């Protein structure tokens, strides 16, 4: 049979969450502005160490890979992303980002609603895959199945059982125990709903694990990733994506950004890990001819306080985000928040210049081809970061 002409591949979104509140002021540095050096007396980078990429902005000294990606025209920097009355609580802020609901408490994650749009009958448990422990709230909503993978090389149920034939025999029985049934528990109706829900969830886990089990052996690459959590997670994204299992949303997390103290060494390490990890990820996708369909969103729940506290920085607002990929029209988007003290929010913070829901809307409509209004709960100004 003659191979069919390659059809256009489905768009895929990869989210990289920087947990703890990334210090945007030390990520994309306004290196020609004296105020930066005044407020970041201890927790800042000297001119000559940071890496200029425009006349006014420089990357963190360890983020050379970011500068290269930017120069390649594959990185859109959204300066000053946020929302009104920014929350300084990690949990509340993350929740707001995950549910698109800054004022009241919502239960449905924005990406869970994306899964529901793409796969309304939950036919593929791998439509969304999250790497790390536990499912982020962005992927959680009643009736939506998303797969959470802690260790791709040993993923699934009863993984502590070393004897593989024993484990497979148990999983056989498991699949029969978790078959949805009409009559459960002697026909007790109310338990039946719960039992069928459990059965469907268990079957979904089993099906997802079965689909993922050959992924590690199928993947080959010349790219050598570093040994850290974000690099591993991004490598896992490539491994699953190139296996062609129909995943449309990947979620990864890079933790440790909550630098109240000792920020300099810690943030330096994270910036190196993150930027190199993403560069390797792009190279790996290139090697697998899988670059064109993927767009990466890098975000954090908030930025940090303008003035350092002598060792670190406290929770602030107005951070930045990055959209990265082949189809991205690289450059600067929205305005860098004013760092003039007279314009600081509450006298101490960067004031956001672009609503985060507009960034989600941009990705949903212009990349995934979905109507964003129901997902981000409103109509928000979008950007034009794609070619």
């Amino acid at each position, binding site marked *: 049979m003659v191979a069919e002409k390659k059809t256009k591949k489905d768009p895929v979104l990869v989210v990289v969450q920087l947990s703890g509140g990334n210090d945007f002021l030390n990520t994309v540095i306004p290196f020609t502005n004296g105020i930066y050096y005044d407020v970041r007396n201890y927790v800042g980078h000297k001119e000559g160490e940071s890496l200029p990429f425009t006349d006014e902005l420089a990357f963190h000294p360890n983020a050379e890979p970011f500068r290269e990606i930017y120069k390649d025209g594959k990185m859109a920097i959204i300066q000053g992303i946020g929302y009104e009355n920014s929350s300084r609580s990690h949990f509340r802020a993350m929740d707001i980002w995950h549910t698109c609901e800054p004022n009241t408490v919502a239960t449905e994650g924005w990406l869970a609603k994306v899964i529901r749009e793409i796969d309304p009958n939950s036919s593929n448990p791998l439509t969304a895959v999250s790497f790390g422990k536990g499912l982020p709230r962005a992927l959680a909503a009643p009736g939506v199945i998303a797969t*959470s993978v802690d260790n791709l090389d040993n993923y699934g149920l009863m993984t502590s059982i070393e004897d593989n034939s024993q484990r497979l025999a148990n999983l056989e029985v498991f699949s029969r125990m978790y078959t949805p049934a009409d009559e459960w528990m002697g026909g007790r109706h109310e338990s039946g709903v719960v039992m069928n829900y459990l059965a469907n969830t268990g079957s979904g886990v089993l099906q997802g694990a079965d689909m993922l089990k050959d992924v590690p052996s199928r993947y080959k690459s010349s790219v050598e990733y570093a040994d850290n959590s974000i690099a591993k997670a991004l490598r896992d994204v490539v491994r699953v994506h190139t296996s062609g299992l129909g995943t449309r949303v990947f979620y990864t997390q890079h933790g440790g950004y909550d630098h109240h103290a000792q920020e300099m060494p810690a943030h330096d390490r994270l910036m190196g890990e993150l930027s190199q990890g993403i560069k390797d990820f792009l190279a790996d996708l290139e090697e697998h001819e899988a670059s064109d369909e993927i767009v990466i969103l890098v975000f954090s729940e908030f930025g940090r306080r303008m003035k350092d506290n002598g060792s670190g920085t406290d929770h602030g607002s107005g951070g930045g985000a990055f959209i990265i990929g082949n189809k991205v029209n690289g450059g600067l988007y929205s305005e860098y928040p004013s760092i003039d003290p007279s314009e600081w929010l509450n006298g101490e913070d960067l004031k956001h210049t672009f609503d985060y829901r507009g960034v989600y809307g941009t990705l949903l409509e212009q990349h995934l081809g979905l109507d964003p209004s129901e997902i981000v709960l409103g109509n928000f100004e979008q950007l034009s970061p794609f070619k």
Partner: protein
Amino acid sequence: MATDKALISHLYRRAGFGITSELLEELSKKEYESIVDDLVEIDKIPDLPDEDILSRYYPQLQSTDNFGLDNTKWFYRMINSKKPLQEKMTLFWHHVFATGWTKSEQGPTMIDHIAMLRKNCLLNLRTLLTDLASDPAMIFWLDNCENHGKNINENFGRELLELFSMGIGNYSEDDIKEASRAFTGWTFEQPIPLYPYGHFKSQFIFDEEDHDFGEKEFLGNKGNFNGEDIVAIIVKTEACAKFISRHLYNFFVADEPQIPAWSIEPPKDEEAMNILVSTFLNSDADMKEVMKSLFKSDFFKNSMFKRVKCPAEFIAGALKLTSEIGPKDDRLASLHGLSAVMGQTLLDPPTVEGWHTGKEWIDGGSLTERINYAVGLVTDMNNSGSKSLVDNLVNSDKELSAEQLVNLILINAGYLDVSEQTFDQLLDIASKGPTVGNNNDSEDVRDKVIQLYTLLVSSPEFQLA
């Protein structure tokens, strides 16, 4: 008169976190009513002597905002306390009055908050609500420190009525404003700043200068009410009795829909509600009386396995079944993170509405974590409990039929009740391979018994309590 062991197991799953076989044996000789009475009388039972060791192993450091250490201690108490109902009620109130570490400028106040719930958990609801309103963690969580005599902040007043005592539809917007006025000046002393020394607790103060001493009209009553007066009025209402009863039913009896649906959907069991509500009103909100009537009722006795275990129940229950956990056990420190991964970070509920319960505890990730954790415990023969679960069957004098074997497995795991489908699967495995019993302690007999326990703790029914 003796009591059915299945019923005692049920009682201890609900009123505590499971039961050891030794205690089950001992209690089965007593009458059910007196078992319940003893459970509720927590003042007559001393604290664990290990508290001292715990506080040295898991000290609360002022310099960090790590509340995992306190959760470590809490898990230890859930597993080992001689008054399990105290820990269960504390968890219950933590679900209802959901207050969290992440919105807390003085983190350690959350530890005092839980201690306050523990102290008041079986007292009069009036005492509990009054202490709740004067709790620094709550005051900051719901902004009562911003509730001023001349400029009220309604956050606490609103949630007190909506989420903590009455439920939506039982009061007006004016009642919220009047209640908020009564709580003006209920604040805390400015604590020592975070830098450079770390987190310090703050203490409640009543700031007379900032209190509105004027007349208020609240739920049809008029007077120069202060906060305590508002609480006293609330606790006397039937709406409060119904609201707390429904919470108790959802947590101790059977899963109800989530709170936002309560004003639309009627309770599952109106008759059960009537019993709880009348006990509540007749006893003047004495929680001991309410809990006794709940546990002694037929609706409770008939509610076996009608709830999905919350992560804390799942973890503490699985450990109690399979292991002995001393205060220095290495595994204790991992439980805080484990329950977080399963969807329940104690001392840090997602919102003031608390955790969504019932089947909402379960998604693909949390189910995988739960099953893998239980399988890991039950297959590890270094765990004394897991080993004796197996020994108990292997060392049987008589030969066990496949059916006897499955029934004993279910009994040993807490008198579990499983569906026909699950029973048949277990029976199928029990019928294959070597016969168990006759003191045949060979490796393949042990493997078969371990396999049966592995499958049982992986079953859908093991998710239920």
